[in-house]
């Protein structure tokens, strides 16, 4: 090999060695298309993620993550989201050493096999009208961007945390898997009064409740006549009689605009 070429070659090798690892992390999942890794990733995904994102990745208590690539997220970006979580949301961090780099890459390799085209949410809906509907139908129980009731969960970031399908099902059909801290409960006190609300905490001897008038209060079970867990959510079901299909489209459009609330910004 002539000297010149050799020098050139070795320079390339050296610079490749220097930038190689960084580049590697930035570009591609090293386990993509590796069948063993994909299987391992499926197992890891089911254990760690499926409760929230669903076995099919379409989202339950978390967003649809089959569309992350088609909406422009990079492997590295996704890796970092999983490693660090999304602070102040339900999306937890998967920290080392419990989750190794390999674990995360393998789960992403599996997720990639579920990758779907960009969301096909119908373009229908008028968010402005949705916001109005929210104020009349929902705000008694839900806060959004700093205003509203407290019986139900704060929905200020529900647009990033739930898919449209999940929101639609929740509003139209209700759910038996109550969000923790919002399970329906009724206490009948010693004098026969009933207190209805959602359960904040419970042990063998007491229960802590936010009642329908947003009073937070503890009750001792041995001093109450009855403490009953409800079967139906404290949130009413909104059938087509209460909410037309086109109003539902508007409401969903509005909910999807809810992508986080910064309390340091002054409200009007």
């Amino acid at each position, binding site marked *: 090999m002539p000297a010149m070429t050799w020098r050139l070659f070795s320079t390339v090798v050296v610079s490749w060695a220097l930038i190689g690892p960084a580049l590697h992390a930035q570009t591609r999942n090293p386990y993509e298309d590796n069948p*063993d890794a994909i*299987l*391992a*990733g*499926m*197992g*890891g995904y*089911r*254990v*760690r993620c*499926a*409760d929230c994102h669903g076995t099919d990745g379409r989202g339950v208590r978390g967003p649809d993550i089959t569309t992350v690539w088609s909406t422009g997220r990079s492997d590295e970006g996704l890796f970092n989201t999983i490693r660090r979580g999304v602070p102040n949301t339900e999306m937890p961090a998967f920290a080392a*050493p*419990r989750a*190794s780099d*390999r674990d995360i890459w393998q789960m992403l390799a599996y997720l990639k096999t579920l990758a779907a085209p960009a969301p096909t949410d119908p373009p229908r809906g008028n968010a402005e009208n949705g916001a109005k509907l929210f104020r009349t139908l929902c705000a008694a129980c839900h806060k959004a961007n700093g205003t509203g009731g407290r019986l139900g969960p704060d929905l200020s970031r529900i647009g990033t945390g739930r898919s449209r399908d999940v929101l639609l099902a929740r509003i139209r059909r209700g759910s*038996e*898997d109550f969000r923790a801290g919002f399970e329906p409960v009724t206490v009948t006190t010693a004098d026969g009064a009933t207190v209805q609300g959602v359960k904040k905490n*419970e*042990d*063998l*001897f007491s229960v802590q409740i936010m009642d329908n008038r947003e009073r937070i209060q503890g009750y001792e079970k041995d001093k109450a006549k009855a403490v009953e867990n409800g079967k139906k959510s404290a949130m009413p079901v909104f059938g087509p009689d209460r909410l037309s299909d086109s109003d539902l489209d508007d409401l969903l459009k509005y909910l999807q605009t809810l992508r986080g609330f910064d309390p340091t910004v002054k409200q009007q």
Partner: protein
Amino acid sequence: MMRIFPVLAVCFLLAGVTIAQQAPPALVSIQEVAQGLPADGSRWLTFGGNYSNHRHSPLTQITPANVSRLKPLWTFQTATLGNFETTSLVRDNVLYVTGPQNVAWAIDARTGRQIWRYRRELPQGLTACCGLVNRGFGVLGDRLFMTTLDAHLIALDIKTGSVVWDATLEDYKTGHSSTIAPLVVKDKVIVGAAGGEYGIRAFIDAYDAQTGKRAWRFYTIPGPGEPGNNTWAGESWKTGGASVWVTGAYDPEQNLLMYGIGNPGPDYHSESRKGDNLYSNAIVALDADTGKLKWHYQFTPHDVHDWDATEVPILADLPINGETRKVVMFANRNGFYYTLDRTTGKIIVAKPFVITTWAKEIGADGRPVLIPGHTPDEKGEVTCPDLTGGTNFWQPSFDPSTRTFFVNAREVCMTFISWKPTYTPGERFTGGSGQRVKPSESPAWGALRAIDPATAALKWEFKFLSPSTSGILTTASGLLFSGDSDGNLLALDSRSGKLLWRYQMGAPLHGTSPTTYIIDGRQHLLVPAGTTLTAWAIE
């Protein structure tokens, strides 16, 4: 003569003083250790109270009639991150307590005030799988023995807390650690290695209490050429885990140690280690002088659900079918309760004590009769009990007067999921995990259960909203002390299971039980919960 006499006298005086300084009697004799809990309540010197692990006190001052008059005397706070899982020792009105992160204390049992504190400098990035905990001291002479998270065994001076010797079990960088309370038998200190989730090859070790030199080692996975090595396909024995992290029992009559052994690794991946995988998920009976195996019984051959047999074995002599049998009682993580003959390791009784869906029964040959479809894969399969098991390392108790075995049981099912893992030294090596079954489909609950060890029949149960992870103490006055998962300290009538008294501690008793002893003529109850230790007595 006149001149010599005073000189001699001075010599004698000096010699006398020297002798007095050299030999104050050692605080704890081996006879005291072996005796278990004395009727005068003056000491608690081993993990289970006695070598048989009864965790049953002869004390009767606190009774079902007056237990509601218990009042707190003091509370001690660790000021250290992490929770108590310890069984405190007591001798001569002083408590010897190990805490999380290998911090330990001598505490005045009258007032809760610290006498000394020991803290081990631990390396960064420890890999202990399940919390930086410790389960208690062993003691002999003027020495306390403690295992460490970086897999050492140390001896501390009981008067000062300074280190007397420090023995290395194994390199912590390969995933070894130790959390077990040492058991002192004759002149030896018995300990074990944890790290079953990291592909270690675990062992039980005996160290000379005097010098800290290793006397023997029993590998819980047989090496090449040893019987049982062929129960591991290929090289899988090298990374098979089978850790030891819960103190066993000792039978002086047979000079036998009986220890429960942890899960095989990788925990969930069947293909990675075909065979029975001895002595994982077994109880082993070892000669206390040599560490030689006398017998073993494997509860769960080829376990794929992480069902360590690291529960506390309890020894007793029981009348069964008109005969007095020398037994070891064992409520296993796999959902079955066992009474074994402790001279042979053969089954006398074996029945489920919680809902179990993986095995129909334990066959006449001692092997579980498997129900197909319970080997986890990437898609997952639902099995009961879950990976935490029907019970776990939290201590059961045994009342010899009523011959009742008490255990905190769990009713939880899980979707087990598994995939092929790759072994990297010092990294987790489990090949799977579990996913909770939705509460709306299968709620998780628990109960404290009183079991007749002659038949495995349930005598009574006390139900919890969610499973308790508390140990259990019983007393000769008919009391049972335990806790629930919500921080309630509970006193039950041990004959009926009726709730007599409760107190909200603010944190659950986890993997530990109250203990009891007498200070200045008054029976005390000591309760470790979260980061606190609280002493109680009747007003």
